[in-house]
């Protein structure tokens, strides 16, 4: 760069000649140079400012446009993949052991309203009241004119109702999609399934959560997103359950009972094939919990699991089995049954006098209280308690149904000798029919404890701890068979199915204490076929009365036993059991198939 000299020699010399001050020239040049520098600096600064302004403009416009775009576009979740969201139902199906549907989902609609957007509120109220008879027109009209923004009207609608509401043509009436739990079999297996209700509800969806039964107990499994497409398979057999319920219901009607429970369980692995509790309810339309009266009389009450009853003489099988197991007796040992038996200030009697002595087998066939009490005196209360504990009678049931977690057996606080004697024949200890089923299963299956389960087991289940020996179990099978062949359960004999079991008639406890004279719980607990027991059956009738004779008969032999016989006759063929060959019917029966 060529610098302009501050003191150009030519001009200095000229100035000197004229006698001027050469410094003025230098100052003048310096000023000119500074002006140039200043102009340059200003233009550069202006350029930079301009750039800055433009940068800001661009930045702010970007932000502004982005905001406008966001404000103007539909909200949408960012997604990493395009996998179909919400394809699956939100609750897994429940099926029976053969794959028949017990519970499934159906898409339906909920109805809500925006009263502010209503064009003609009174007309909508009138038309809605016509479609839904349970809605009150007056009340609706008031709600529609209140000017509120939002109001639920109905939780679920049928397709016909949706169309009818559409036809009103009111823009303030809106639909939200809903997934609804559907139990196609209605009342069948209602106590097992329980029921559902809506949880958190929004306009676009609602949670469906279990409120009772297996729906509540396995709620997490049923709602687990990873297992939604795998239905939950129960051990229940729908056909058997239906036949069981039908026979039990007609038995209950004939015998004027106010309730009944029935359980059919696999004796080897504890699978429950049918569990009936009557009266029952429709899980699609679950009735509200009772607010008055005895909750045990409500249809919601599961008698098989929640019903803790003094089970009566069916419990005699346990002291007998223990006595045999301990080697104190054998099936032919004679036990004194001279009555009445005095125990402190308590007296034990038999239903009628069975003479001075009975064999252990006959204590069961005739159901002698005194004989059983004598057996338990030999065994002692401590060992009795330990045995019943092993059999599961003192603990909560471990079964996949929520009601079981609250049904703790009622046992005496102090296990005195009197308690020990009464418990031996089934009074003083209250347990559920399901406890009884589990106990009988281990009596007859070779002595292994089973855990009742409502889920179908894949493959064989490892047997539980052995509580009695194979030999005792064999003896018990023979004794229980004898009860049906010649004892108190003769009426349950079904040719070919070798049913064995024990009857029990327990006087019902008054809520105020003491026992009713004319109200009993009639039970039967047994298994079939007794040569190799595959199924345990429990029948329990609440306050039955057989009135065909001159006098009302309430004992289990006249009530629970005939019902059991009929149940076995109906369900054993459904289970694919063929009657034993020894008692095979004559060829005449073959023609019966054809007519």
């Amino acid at each position, binding site marked *: 760069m060529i610098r302009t000299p501050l003191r150009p020699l030519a001009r200095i010399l000229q100035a000197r000649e004229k006698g001027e001050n050469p410094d003025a020239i230098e100052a003048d040049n310096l000023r000119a140079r500074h002006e140039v520098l200043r102009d340059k600096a200003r233009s550069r600064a202006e350029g930079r400012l301009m750039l800055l302004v433009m940068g800001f403009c661009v930045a702010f416009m970007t932000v502004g446009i982005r905001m406008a775009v966001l404000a103007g576009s539909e909200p949408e979740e960012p997604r990493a993949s*395009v996998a*179909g*969201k*919400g*394809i*699956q*139902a939100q609750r897994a199906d429940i099926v029976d052991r053969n794959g*028949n*549907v017990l519970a*499934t*989902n*159906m*898409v339906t609609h909920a109805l809500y309203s925006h009263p502010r957007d209503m064009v003609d509120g009174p007309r909508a109220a009138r038309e809605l009241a016509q479609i839904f008879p349970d809605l009150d027109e007056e009340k609706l009209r008031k709600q529609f004119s209140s000017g509120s923004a939002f109001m639920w009207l109905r939780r679920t609608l049928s397709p016909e109702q949706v169309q009818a509401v559409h036809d009103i043509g009111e823009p303030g009436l809106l639909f939200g999609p809903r997934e609804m739990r*559907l139990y*196609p*079999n*209605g009342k*069948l297996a209602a106590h097992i399934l329980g029921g559902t209700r809506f949880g958190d509800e929004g306009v676009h969806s609602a949670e469906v959560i279990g409120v009772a039964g297996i729906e509540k107990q396995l709620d997490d499994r049923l709602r687990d997103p990873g297992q939604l497409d795998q239905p939950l398979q129960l051990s229940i057999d*729908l*056909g058997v359950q*239906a*036949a069981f319920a*039908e026979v039990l219901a007609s038995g209950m009607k004939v015998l004027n009972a106010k309730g009944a429970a029935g359980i059919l369980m696999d004796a080897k692995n504890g699978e429950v094939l049918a569990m009936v509790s009557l009266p029952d309810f429709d899980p699609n339309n679950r009735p509200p919990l009772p607010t008055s009266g005895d909750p045990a009389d409500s249809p919601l009450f599961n008698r098989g699991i929640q019903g803790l009853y003094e089970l009566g003489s069916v419990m005699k099988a346990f002291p007998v089995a223990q006595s045999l197991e301990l080697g104190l007796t054998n099936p032919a040992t004679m036990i004194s049954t001279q009555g009445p038996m005095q125990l402190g200030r308590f007296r034990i009697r038999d239903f009628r006098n069975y003479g001075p002595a009975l064999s252990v087998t006959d204590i069961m066939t005739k159901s002698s209280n005194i004989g059983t009490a004598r057996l338990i005196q030999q065994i002692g209360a401590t060992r009795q308690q330990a045995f019943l504990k092993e059999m599961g009678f003192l603990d909560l049931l471990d079964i996949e149904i929520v009601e079981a977690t609250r049904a703790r057996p009622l046992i005496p606080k102090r296990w005195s000798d009197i308690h020990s004697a009464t418990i031996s024949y089934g009074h003083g200890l209250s347990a559920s029919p399901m406890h009884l089923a589990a106990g009988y299963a281990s009596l007859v299956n070779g002595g292994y404890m089973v855990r009742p389960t409502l889920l179908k087991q894949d493959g064989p289940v490892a047997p539980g701890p052995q509580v009695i020996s194979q030999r005792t179990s064999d003896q018990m099978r023979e004794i229980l068979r004898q009860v049906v062949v010649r004892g108190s359960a003769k009426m349950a004999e*079904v*040719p*070919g*199915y070798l049913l064995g079991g024990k009857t029990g008639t327990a006087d019902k406890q008054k809520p105020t204490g003491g026992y009713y004279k004319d109200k009993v719980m009639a039970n039967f607990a047994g298994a079939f076929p007794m040569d190799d027991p595959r199924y345990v059956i429990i029948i329990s009738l609440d306050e039955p009365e057989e009135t065909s004779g001159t006098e009302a008969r309430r004992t289990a032999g006249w009530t629970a036993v005939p019902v059991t016989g009929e149940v076995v*006759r*109906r369900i*054993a*063929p*459904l289970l694919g059991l*063929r*009657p034993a*060959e020894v008692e*095979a*019917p004559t*060829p005449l*029966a*073959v023609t*019966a*198939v054809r*007519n």
Partner: protein
Amino acid sequence: MRTVVVIASLLAMLASGFWAYRENYATKLSVREVTRLSRDIRQLQEAIALQNAEWAYQNRPDRLAELVSANFDRLGLLPMQPEQFAATGQLPDPPPPPLVDDPLMVSEPGTPEPETLP
């Protein structure tokens, strides 16, 4: 040389911009297609679920029992009884094979049927 590089990179930029633009729209189209398909799938699954529920409802044991008793005169169905199990010995013998004049003419499996048989 430098000019060539500049022009080449400019062209490459244009090409890649065009490619990205096309890919973007192709993706959006596919996403829309997938959404539509999954909506269809969902509707079909809902329909299947509804049909299954309907099937289960129509085949519920109560209803079948009612239908069976309503149509008893035509079907004559009764609950299965233990007596209906039959032993193999109770089955009638199979009918005897049809008599043939010449036993030698009975065809072996695989050989063609002689046309002269009556």
